[in-house]
């Protein structure tokens, strides 16, 4: 049953993503992207990573896409303006980029597999998967403490950057 659900959610995420990149209307693209995030959240739930699923919807679909929508509405992008900037070489470049991406990520995954990051069958039998907030809390504030503190600096940088960049336009 989990396989069926995974296919359903993963497939819908894929379909939404494809629709998102082929729409002419930028707002429609943004909405399909939100749909993709929901599909992804469904996949996370099937994988029993409940916290990540909730955060995916909360932060990505609920905050970042709202930002995207605001920007699209703010810039008032229209189809005609976008067509002017498209060149006939775009599809070829797109295909090249996609091939490059597949090759590089494939190589990265193979390297990771050789380094032993993915657990083999014996390890998988004893692996305890816990997606609950308690487990994430324990890990986040134990093993990944430094990364967590650095994240606050990253966020601070984001805040300062956003204010500085827009302040120039306000004053």
């Amino acid at each position, binding site marked *: *049953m*989990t396989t069926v659900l995974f296919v359903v959610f993963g497939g819908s995420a894929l379909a939404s993503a494809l629709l998102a990149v082929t729409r002419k209307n930028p707002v429609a693209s943004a909405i399909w992207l939100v749909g993709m995030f929901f599909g992804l959240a469904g996949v996370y*739930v*099937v994988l*029993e990573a*409940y*916290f990540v699923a909730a*955060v995916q919807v*909360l*932060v990505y679909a*609920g*905050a*970042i896409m*709202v*930002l995207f929508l*605001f*920007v699209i*509405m*703010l810039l*008032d992008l229209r189809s005609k303006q976008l067509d002017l900037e498209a060149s006939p070489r775009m599809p070829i470049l797109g295909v090249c980029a996609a091939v490059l991406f597949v090759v590089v990520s494939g190589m990265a995954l193979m390297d990771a597999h050789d380094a032993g990051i993915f657990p083999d069958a014996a390890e998988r039998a004893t692996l305890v998967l816990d997606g609950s*907030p*308690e487990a*994430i*809390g*324990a890990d*986040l*504030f134990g093993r990944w*403490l430094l990364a*967590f*503190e650095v*994240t*606050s*600096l990253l*966020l*601070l940088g*984001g*805040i*300062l950057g*956003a*204010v500085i960049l*827009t*302040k120039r*336009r*306000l004053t």
Partner: protein
Amino acid sequence: MATTLDSLLALDFPGAALAGLFLATGDLVEYVPVLVMLIFAVLFAGANLGLSFVLGAKGKTNPVKEAAYECGMPPITDAHQRFSVKFYLVAILFVLFDIEVVFLYPWAVHFGEKALQTFLFVEMLIFIGILFLGWWYVIRKGAVNWAQE
């Protein structure tokens, strides 16, 4: 009566092959009612719109009905105008502080452990402190002060 109902409800789903159909173990099964509720909500809203489309009076259109409403006058300019950049700033600040809130939740749940409490408290104090600096900068610069145009 109660006992027969009881035993009826205690039945396992007929057919062992179908037993896996409802994700028998773990918390995953709790999400099935959420999915069901979502489907019902979509069906309800969709049915309402469909019903209104079917049942609604069909009138002829005229140019006045088609135009945007601007207190009775013909609309002056096109709808899309440039917006104040403050909306963009609010959205981006919301993203950043939302991430902070998201970090606070596993921390709050994990805080129950007595042994680590002081350590966790100091950790989070630093985190919130750094972001508080960011907030203070935002307020000082008047970035979300809507009155300041």
